């Protein structure tokens, strides 16, 4: 694990050192580019405030992700089961993803106000897609022979989903979930940025207006860290759900 991550860790440390060096020799004025040490300092001093905002953002992200996963799951199963639905809605599904979320967010704010609802809707819109597409691909690529075998044993449609289709779609589902988890945080921040009372996005707009670049960088790192943490959680769940992967082949 450590050996595997060593090159990337070294690369990050190296970049941080260069950054610090650039700031120390005064190549860029301090108010435009704070040094890494300044950022860490801002992070520590702002921690209580950052924590409160982060909790709001996380709450939105979780609720949005939850509904996004549920909707994505149902949509994928329906489209797999009924070919007509697939033909009717798959192109539409793709189109929804070509609309930039920064364009929808203000509309959602107009329709649903500054509270949590528009934010959650935006997150749902941006997270259900990777779930639907991933799961649908997985369901459709299930082994035809295995399905025939189950049919020869008199299995019902539900049993075919239960024993073949859903388990064999798990890897694709989790790839989708990992992307959706990252999208959920970004989606929350964007919608807060465009209108709201709390959350890391709101915090960002405030520090931007104050030209507090050190705090800006601190919040950027925090958002990255939260996204990474969520993705790591998904990976953990993935490993728990699929113990048969990464088996050492022993007889």
């Amino acid at each position, binding site marked *: 694990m450590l050996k595997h991550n060593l090159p990337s860790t070294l690369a990050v440390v190296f970049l941080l050192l260069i950054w610090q060096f650039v700031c120390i020799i005064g190549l860029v004025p301090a108010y435009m580019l704070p040094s890494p040490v300044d950022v860490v300092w801002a992070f520590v001093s702002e921690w209580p405030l950052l924590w409160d905002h982060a909790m709001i953002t996380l709450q939105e992200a979780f609720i949005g992700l939850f509904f996004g996963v549920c909707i994505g799951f149902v949509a994928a199963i329906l489209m797999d089961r009924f070919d007509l639905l697939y033909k009717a809605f798959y192109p539409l599904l793709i189109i929804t993803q070509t609309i930039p979320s920064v364009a929808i967010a203000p509309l959602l704010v107009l329709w649903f106000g500054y509270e949590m609802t528009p934010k959650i809707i935006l997150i749902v819109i941006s997270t259900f897609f990777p779930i639907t597409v991933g799961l649908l691909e997985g369901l459709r690529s299930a082994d035809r022979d295995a399905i*025939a075998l189950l049919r*020869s044993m008199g*299995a019902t449609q539900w049993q075919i989903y239960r024993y073949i289709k859903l388990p064999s779609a798990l890897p694709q589902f989790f790839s989708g979930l990992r992307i959706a988890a990252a999208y959920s945080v970004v989606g929350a921040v964007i919608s807060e940025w465009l209108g709201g009372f709390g959350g890391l996005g709101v915090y960002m707009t405030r520090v931007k207006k104050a030209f507090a670049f050190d705090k800006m960088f601190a919040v950027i790192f925090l958002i990255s860290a939260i996204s990474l943490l969520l993705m790591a959680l998904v990976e953990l769940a993935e490993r728990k759900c699929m113990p048969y992967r990464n*088996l050492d082949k022993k*007889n």
Partner: protein
Amino acid sequence: MRMKKLEVNHISKCFDGKPILQDISITLNQGELVSLLGVSGGGKTTLFNIIAGLLPPDEGNVILNGKDITNQPGQISYMMQKDLLLPYRTIEDNAALPLLLKGVNKRDARTQVSLLFAQFGLEGTQKKYPAQLSGGMRQRAALLRTYLFSQDVALLDEPFSALDTLTKRSIHQWYLDVMEKIQLTTLFITHDIDEAILLSDRIYLLSGNPGRIAAEIVIQEPKPRRDDFSLTPEFLEYKRKILSLL
């Protein structure tokens, strides 16, 4: 005269107007092992899909224990060419699958399955995943699953064709021993003449394009057999006869 288990009567099937099977009739008696021997692509798997009820025949019917089961899946055990063990289930849960499909609860299914692991030479593999087993062991597990679905009649589609020669030899002996114990009535597809003679009570020779029954050969050698039967002059005589008919 032994009881008739399975009768396949005058089955014909076309795909896109091209005849694949023509007037195929087969009978299978209680406890018998009967082989369908023929070249690959001769429609043998199509015939099995019809017998298993996965595919409707154009003509003919399938009778199991005196009952017409044409086009009704879920009556006969079917083991396909690939072992089709589900990679995400342990061996015991793979074997238990037919029981679970019938509505047996998980604990009872596992108990029933575990009683047979020793008989099938699968001790110690219960908690392993298919990827951790050798090809031969996987076929054993697949056969156990097939047997657990129905102890009545089984269709085996080239179950050992993917194995290397040495593994195949040992699995043939294993198979003869297991069959001696469980007395499963079996219809067996193969393109391996030696395998057909070694294992079968009777052999149907299937000619290709379209698939027809060209001949029926009874192997008189009594059971239980040892795999050194394949080194005897009688064995060679059967082989000569089959080669002359193919």
